[in-house]
Structure formats: C-alpha cells, structure tokens
C-alpha cells in the first residue's frame, strides 16, 4: 500500500467537507460537514502514524494525536449543537443566513 492512497482519500473528503460548509445553509448540516473535515485530518494523522511506526516500532504518536482530535471533535459537536439549539429557540429557524444581526 502507498502512503498516498490514504492522503489523497483524506484530501478528497476534506474538500467535500469544505464544499459542504460553504454550500449548506442549515446549521446542523454545516456541523456535519465540519465532522467530515475533522475525519479527513484524522485519516491523515493515522496514516502518517502508521508510516512512522513501520520504521520506529515504539512510536505511536499519530494514533495519540488522532485520539486527541476525536475528543476535541466530541467537545466541539456538543457546544456547537447547544449553540444551534439556542439559535433555534430564539428565532425558530437554524438558517445561518438569518443570523445576520451584526451586519449594519
């Protein structure tokens, strides 16, 4: 297996996630796209970790960082969905376009 297989797969998923963040209007779907992006990064981390581990068998830093990213992603989704819920409660809609009170 080539290292590039995994890196290119992660790049494709990352770009799909970026498209989702830019093209979607519903806040929950934007959060889902962010999850896609975080997952792409995780695949990169684990792939490089495995590549490094093949030369130095005691080193598992790639996996450790992937675990940290998973934990941070869980925290991010929790707070993000709480914010979405608050927006919904205040304006009965979770369209991001409607949240434009800062615009003059």
């Amino acid at each position, binding site marked *: 297996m080539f290292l590039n297989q995994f890196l290119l797969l992660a790049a494709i998923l990352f770009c799909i996630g970026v498209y989702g963040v830019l093209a979607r209007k519903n806040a929950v779907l934007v959060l889902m796209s962010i999850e*896609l992006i975080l997952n792409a990064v995780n695949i990169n981390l684990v792939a490089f970790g495995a590549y490094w581990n093949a030369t130095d068998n005691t080193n598992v830093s790639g996996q450790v960082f992937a675990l940290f990213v998973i934990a941070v992603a869980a925290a991010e989704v929790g707070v993000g969905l709480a914010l979405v819920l608050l927006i*919904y409660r205040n304006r009965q809609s979770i369209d991001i376009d409607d949240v434009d009170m800062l615009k003059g």
Partner: protein
Amino acid sequence: MLALLVAQNIAFYIIAALMVVGALRVVTCKNLMHAALWLVLVLAGAAAQYILLASEFVAITQVLVYLGAIIVLFLFGIMLTRAKTGTDDDLDNKNSAKFIGGGIAVLLLGLMGYSLIDGFKDTEFGNLMVQRTAQVSDSIFSTYLLPFEVLSILLLAALIGAIVLARRD
C-alpha cells in the same frame, strides 16, 4: 505476502469509494435525516481504514465516539430543531454560492492532490506492524500526559458550557 497486499488494496479502494459517495451524499442530499445516516457510512469507513492501517484502538474509539455518541447527538439536534422529516429544498445556499463553494473545493483538491502526488510519490508503508493498545496507553500516560490532562479539562468545560447554553430557565 503479495496476496495480503492485493487484498488490502482491494479493501482500501472499495471502502474509499463508499466513503467518497457517502460524503458527497452528506453535502448534497435534500433530507436532513438521510444526511446524518450517510455520515454514518463515512465514519464507519474511516474506522475500517484505521483497521487497514493496523491501528486498532483508534478504530474502536472511532466506532464508540463517532458512531455511538456524535451521530446520536446529531439526531437529537435534528429532532430538537424540529426539522422537516421529508425532503426539504431549503437546506442549501443559493446557486451562485454553491458554484463558488464548488470552485473553491475543486481548486483546493487540485492543489492538495498535486502537492501530495509530487511530495509522496511512491512512498510505501514498509512493514506495517500492529500498533498495540498497550503501546498507545503507554504513550498517552508518559509522553503526552500533560496534553491528556488539558484535554480532560477541555471536555469538562465543553460539557458544562453545553448544559449552560441549552438549559431552559
């Protein structure tokens, strides 16, 4: 050894194709619930790729945390915001914004793809060894002890913050 490599490659490409299709459906489909279910496919595919990379603990954690917890959280979010259960045409930005988003994504993909192919041409994995869970825990609780503790504080803070934000009072 060669047969194993061929099998690994076939598995990789099948799972990768499923993941890409799932991800495209997540960002294009018109039904919120279906988008969440396609996301399950992508996350499960990522767990399978971790198994292919011989990283067992991350794969299990992916299944537990992402498939188990985060998807359920998303489903709660969809239900609590009373989304339409059927198809909903009002999920996307207007077409011009979609074109710009697609252009940016394609441009980014071209740039990253070119630099990856240029930078890691023919880099092979060598001898992939199983990275054992014991090694991972040794590493977390020795080298990365401080980041681990900071992360627990972060999770606690996020938990309390989410409860405070979502609480009705």
